């Protein structure tokens, strides 16, 4: 299978993932896949799971969003934060989930913020079980 260059850029590091065959990203309105020779694009990403296929093996990342820029040479994921499956601290995520649920139940102000926190926690827990 033909492959392409993948780079992940975050505010704290730039990591070169090397050649990969496939990337699936959480777009704002649904997941999409990218394979080699994709059309050039800029796509916004939301909270969700990123799947990367490298040498036939799948890896999963949990992200809080960002955007991706696809060019002829490479695919760049510009993510605010991301964690690999093995990096996720499940107990922390569970606590965050509990906290967010309680806040929503108590109908605290800032419903949007609480909902986003909940989404992030659920997402991280899901990816951690991959």
């Amino acid at each position, binding site marked *: 299978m033909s492959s392409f260059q993948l780079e992940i850029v975050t*505010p*704290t590091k*730039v990591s070169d993932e090397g050649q990969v065959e496939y990337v699936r990203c959480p777009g704002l309105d649904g997941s999409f896949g990218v394979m080699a020779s994709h059309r050039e694009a800029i*796509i*916004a990403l939301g909270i969700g799971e990123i799947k990367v296929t490298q040498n036939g093996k799948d890896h999963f990342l949990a992200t809080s969003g960002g955007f991706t820029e696809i060019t002829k040479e490479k695919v760049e994921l*510009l993510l605010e*934060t991301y964690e690999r499956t093995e990096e996720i601290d499940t107990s922390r995520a569970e606590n965050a989930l509990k906290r967010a649920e309680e806040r929503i139940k108590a109908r605290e102000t*800032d419903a949007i*913020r609480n909902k986003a926190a909940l989404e992030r926690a659920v997402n991280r827990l899901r990816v951690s079980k991959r």
Partner: protein
Amino acid sequence: MANLKDIRNRIKSVKSIQKVTKAMKMVAAAKMRRAQERMEEARPFENRLTDTINHLLPDVDRDLLELLDIREINRIGYVVVTSDRGMAGSFNTNILKTAQNEIDIIGKNKVDVFCIGKKARDHFKRRDYHIISSHVDFWSELEYSNAISICEGIISHFTDKHVDKIHVVYNEFINVATQHVQSEVLLPLVFDGDENQFSGKLYEPNKDDIIKSLIPRHLNIQMWKYLLESYSSEQAARMLAMENATENAQEMIKDLTLEFNKARQAAITTEMLEIVSGAEALKG
């Protein structure tokens, strides 16, 4: 003249303080270097994000973006970035002085304050300013999520129209010896928006929504930069303060040693006199 034992004790205590200040200087230097590395690391992300926003902005209806909204100014928000700890020379004093001056010119009751760092919180709390939120005790484990959570509060305060403009006052790191107090406008955001060149790119979901999701992230990275600038400045200021303290201690040790030697010499002289005059008396 002070007696020998007292002087010896003072020398000992100054020496041990000197050891502490020396160690603190070294720690500050290491922390400063780390913070500068992080500033370097943040740059690629920031540049790419700004480029993309500038690239998309000419095609987007600005009225859709509440964070670019220029309103008539009734209330102003001030974000004041200080440290949690002192011992950094005039680092916090400068910031607080500048911030307070600016706020007092506008009028204390027209300003909402966001305090970052214990020093800002204590300062403005004591003087009864209108504090919206304080973020303290995170500097030692500074992470990107701190920038995000600080920004969340600031953004919602602005979009809920409690304030019409937000300023940030922070220390900009120029080099180890110089840090400048900066006061910048954080919101509403201003972008130049470069000349739009036609490109056959695909935009998903569409340019408006991309911009809408990217602008808050741009604010987060901006906040991250302010935090890092301030942290580097703090460490640089502390480094310098500790170096001065170490030098002063050295000076004090020198003076005390001189005094000690004089006192000892005087004691010996008196003793000799006593012996000699005693011998003289026996002869007599």
